[in-house]
């Protein structure tokens, strides 16, 4: 009988590949950067990566249930607009503001969950529609870009610790350890994987499908709002930017896939999605460092995305049984 470790490491294969790719790219970036491995460079990269990383984490949870959340980008933007009004004033006011933004994220997620679970609508179209609603709310809060933010708070969030470790990375790690890990090991988390693997079998096995799905979307909303908070701290303002929201949504899907989570549900995880997010972000950085016009970015992004998923597909293609190719 095979050893335990074979089984434990096997599902992490895709994650390791993504991680290797990420480290290679980042290493290349650092080596070519004029300022080298300095605190500033690390900080900027970390902040940008963490933004997408958090949104990618948000996207991961519904994807595990074989669903999708096309509104994460808009929740992200909405949280940004809300935070730009609430994260001002004294520390206690700021703290309350943070809680209010998180609560809003939860509510958005709850609405998504309600429409998908209670309304029994397909997630793609349901979250497309709710995304429009969140966009509208964001516009209502911030018809014009603006706002003010408690500067001490913002600087702390986007700054680095003494050793040069960016706080945003600590935040990311913190969310992974304190939110994702407990979720994954909980009954609700395992239920999410079960639902993605086979919703019918999960139902027959008494898994609380409705509750777990609902929770998945709520969690997505929460994580997207954390990303919105981070954005507000970075830009010191709020903007109801639909294009930004849309691009974050699509990039989050790409990050999730690069990180090894299957769009069909049932396998993968948030750690991979964070790695995938950093892979995507580093592309832009690499272009900058090699003195290429940023207009090449979409092209490279697309190529990296296709190659990384294509590699995963090659394994399937080598299968000797043609029948296995068809679901």
């Amino acid at each position: 009988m095979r050893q335990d470790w074979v089984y434990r490491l096997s599902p992490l294969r895709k994650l390791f590949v993504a991680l290797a790719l990420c480290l290679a790219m980042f290493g290349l970036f650092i080596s070519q950067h004029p300022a080298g491995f300095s605190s500033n460079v690390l900080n900027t990269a970390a902040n940008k990566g963490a933004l997408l990383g958090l949104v990618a984490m948000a996207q991961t949870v519904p994807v595990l249930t074989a669903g999708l959340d096309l509104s994460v980008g808009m929740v992200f933007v909405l949280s940004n607009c809300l935070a730009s009004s609430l994260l001002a004033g004294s520390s206690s006011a700021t703290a309350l503001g943070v809680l209010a933004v998180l609560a809003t994220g939860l509510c958005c997620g709850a609405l998504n969950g309600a429409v998908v679970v209670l309304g029994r609508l397909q997630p793609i179209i349901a979250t497309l529609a709710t995304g429009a609603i969140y966009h509208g709310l964001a516009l209502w809060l911030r018809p014009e870009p603006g706002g003010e933010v408690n500067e001490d708070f913002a600087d702390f969030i986007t700054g680095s610790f003494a050793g040069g470790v960016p706080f945003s990375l600590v935040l990311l790690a913190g969310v992974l350890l304190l939110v994702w890990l407990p979720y994954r090991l909980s009954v609700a988390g395992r239920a999410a994987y079960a639902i993605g693997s086979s919703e019918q079998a999960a139902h027959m096995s008494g898994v609380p499908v409705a509750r777990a799905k609902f929770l998945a979307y709520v969690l997505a909303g929460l994580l997207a709002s954390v990303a919105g908070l981070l954005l507000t701290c970075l830009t010191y303002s709020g903007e109801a930017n639909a294009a930004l929201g849309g691009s974050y949504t699509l990039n989050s899907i790409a990050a999730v896939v690069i990180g090894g989570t299957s769009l069909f549900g049932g396998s993968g995880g948030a750690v991979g999605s964070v790695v995938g997010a950093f892979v995507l972000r580093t592309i832009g950085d690499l272009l900058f460092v090699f003195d290429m016009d940023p207009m090449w970015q979409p092209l490279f992004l697309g190529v990296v995305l296709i190659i990384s998923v294509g590699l995963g597909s090659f394994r399937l293609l080598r299968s000797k049984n043609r029948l296995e190719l068809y679901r």
Partner: protein
Amino acid sequence: MTAMLFRMQGVSKRYGGVRALTDAHLECERGRIHAVLGENGAGKSTLIKVMAGVVTPDAGTLELAGKPLATGNPAAASQAGIVTVFQELSLLPDLSVADNIAITHPPTRFGLIDGRAQRRLAEWALSRVGASDIHPLAPVGDLPLSRRQLVEIAKALARRPKLLILDEATSALAAADVANVLRVLRELRDEGLAIVYITHRMHEIAELADDCSIYRNGRHVSTFAASSKSPTEIIEMMIGREYSNVFPPRPEPKPARAAALRVQKLSWAGRLEGIDFEVRPGEVVGIGGLEGQGQRELLLALFGALNGVRGLVEVNGRQVSLSSPRTALLEGGIALIPEDRKTEGLMLRMSVRDNLSFAAIDQFSRFGLIDRKAEEAALSRMLELLQIRSDGFDQPVASLSGGNQQKVVIGKWLMTGPRIILLNDPTRGIDVGTKQELYRLVRKLADADAAILFYSTDYDELIGCSDRVLILYEGAIVRELEGNELSERNIVASSHNLTVDEAGNVS
């Protein structure tokens, strides 16, 4: 302690216009195995689902250990100790065996799932069903079907049921595993567990059941002690009419003709090793052997569904390329009735008509456009020939019973006028009445000069339908049985790569 553990009375359920159950009742005692029998559509599935709380009955009561049980509430049934092993596996392919076994009530510690306790539970449950060789951390999707069914049973046992319901729980198991499971069930019964057991296999009833109940058309027909009636009597009660010869008679041996299908040195990926055989037109050649010895792969290979097949395949003297099912059909006139009709044979949401005409649709197309009249005419002929029973042929094919669904699958291929017909365990999960119709159909097709390759896991069927039988062992043909040699004992022996001499000694 009351002897009667479970009692169900007056249960009725309608689905639209169809009465699935009318005034059904069932009683089960502790320490007894109660077999439930009936054709497809007799209401057994609905009965089980009502007991498990998955389906809410329109009328009727359930009672467990003297206390009334809420209907339509799977959680309540589960709490009360009713555990069901359904026919459709309820396993999650991406999760590990241990995760699956503990999925319903995972052991927790501080609110999180306790992996170690879960693993201990899984190891205990697996050893209970005699499957200790399955690693608890293996993803269930990687296991072959028969192992998965064992995991399903282990999962049920892990819930420490008071009443265990098994719906065709052995249908996918290899013979050795079946013996194991039957033994475990007997042990559990002796320990005081109440078991309700649904099966189509007569010899399992003989080995297992204490009591039998028969259902027909949603109504209870009779309950009796298992040993008190003969298999023939039981079958007659199930189908409601006299039960005569199951298998159509074999025809007179024909003069030898050139082979319709000739296979030489067929090999594939270590699962098929140098297979040589011939099938003449009008012959029904059976394929037997233990499960997983390459039978399924052989049929798939001949149909063009496998990559990298080596060897020679000739139809009527001309070589056929096996690059895809399309070429298999176009070049060789080869048709395959696949193993799983629901996922491989039918498009469930499409209508009966659309499914039937699907493979042959090009025959009715001119310049790409479909000639509806020609299609209709051909469809009517096929529906007539196969006697397919349905509420309406524009209904989705999912609404048909298993037997009628299988007829649609067969009809779909017959419409293409195949010369070689491959049948992959066609009567699995099909009621007795339809089975007989299928046997007659197979013989009729052979008489019309088709060459038929018939894989079955049922010995009686294999013997009754085939002119000769090829036994596969580890991907190669080890024995060919014909005439007097074609007996169950020989099949069993050859399946294990042994021979039985005239004195009945095995070597």
